[in-house]
């Protein structure tokens, strides 16, 4: 499947990665190379094959609903690029 400039813009939007318009061509050509590589899968007949999402067929373990870690709110807030004593701060989204 050939990619178009429109696809690159859509992927940039979905992945939330800005792609400078001068780089679009090179990004496109490298992605096409990779998609050509993965397209070789299409020749394989996979009818009636169960998809394998995980290396070991295990189920999600459950545990008792008890607190295991102490509250580290302040440590984590400190890591944020901008925060006050209760929240991470981002540009205003609701006027």
């Amino acid at each position, binding site marked *: 499947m050939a990619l178009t400039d429109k696809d690159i813009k859509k*992927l940039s939007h979905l992945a939330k990665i800005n792609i400078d318009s001068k780089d679009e061509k090179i990004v496109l050509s490298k992605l096409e190379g990779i998609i050509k590589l993965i397209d070789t899968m299409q020749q394989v007949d996979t009818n009636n094959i169960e*998809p394998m999402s995980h290396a070991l067929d295990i189920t999600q373990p459950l545990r008792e609903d008890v607190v295991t870690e102490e509250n580290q709110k302040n440590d984590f807030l400190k890591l944020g*690029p901008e925060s006050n004593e209760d929240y991470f701060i981002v540009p205003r989204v609701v006027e």
Partner: protein
Amino acid sequence: MKNLSLRELNLGLSNKKFSSEELTKFFLNEIKTSNPKINAFITVDEEKSLQQAKDADKRISQNDMNELTGIPIAQKDIFCAKGWKTTCASKMLDNFYAPYDSKVIELFNQHGAINLGKTNMDEFAMGSSNETSYYGEVRNPWNLDYVPGGSSGGSAAAVASGMAPAATATDTGGSIRQPASLCGLTGLKPTYGLVSRFGMIAFASSLDQAGPIAKSAEDCALMLKVMAAHDERDSTSIKHNVPDYLKNLDSPINGKTIGLPKEFFNDDLNQDIKVILEQVIDSYQKIGVNFKEISLPNSHLSIPVYYVIAPAEASSNLSRYDGVKFGYRAEEFKDLEEMYLKTREQGFGDEVKRRILVGTYVLSAGYYDAYYLKAQKIRRLIANDFKNAFNECDLILAPSCPSTAFKIGDKTEDPVAMYMQDMYTISTNLAGLPAISSPAGFLNKMPVGFQLIGNYFDEATILNFTHQYQQITDWHQKTPEADV
């Protein structure tokens, strides 16, 4: 001290030949001398390491000592270590100081090992040459113009150059075995689920697995003994009785069978590497091991399948880097949307962005069935091939890499050529199987490795066979200083 095994270091410490502080100072000094030309470490913190060494010396003096107490270990910069800068070799995490320890770091700390520093790697473990690091490429100690492999290139180069006795690493598609092979070392990727991924920065969660890079199978056995432990905080960590890998090293292997997949020993295999692998087969035959041709008919599909599944999982895992809760945030933006777009444009390198875009593509509406679901189905076929193969043999022998180390810059413009580096390693990640790379010889003065792949949780057999080979060969004892 430079070329001593972990067991010898342990003996030296318990016999009071040297203290942990002296040992740690020795390796910190090696780093000071060699790191400027090799670039294997991103972060070294003498004060922290020496404090740990003093604590270890106290433990040793009180006879509260186990195999790794007082021994400095280099830690791949993918493992969160409390108070240490933990970057995953990305600008995105250049300002990130981990607020907690990963399970792997916690285990080394409990054993009284010394964190010698955080090693360089491909950014977010995406690469096979260590050239995608934000902190610059790592150089191969055997020839500084060549790559050390990746993504655990810093860990491999640190051990190969004698800056560290052993190192931790991670392997999503070959990132332990390929650099081990290219640097003349032994590197073990355990069964998926044996080592906890808690606090290990995620790339492709269904494939990522941590393991050791060291100078021998014996050292790897000792490292794995420490690293393998059940952890409730990793929902994919398996409850498994960890055997004494060291005790098992000397078990006789005569009469056992190694399988040779015909798909790996075809005309595509580099003829010089084939000759070296034939010598490995010869060595094993001399100690009574049988060989049998087996088939892994879907192995040629491993790379396309991997480059759907790994980017898909990465695109999801790396969505957390948005400039809100930690890590890099762009300086200028007009609104929240632009903050995300610019933060991720500026914070990620080209290869990481490429994989996020590929992952986004294969998961996007209209393509999910054709790519992601298709890849998961072929993943099942690949895993079934191994299941059938292990009905016929105890282990599988394979090349580690299609070539020896290549020159820095040789493959950076062609991502697909770079991806081919992992053609012999990736299928075991997809199946979740354990595999090791061990040194087997040299081509043009650059190391060549071979791979042994085992059944699920059969690390003991892999280490046993590798150790037996290393008892009758000395490739693993060669060092760049003495042998180049």
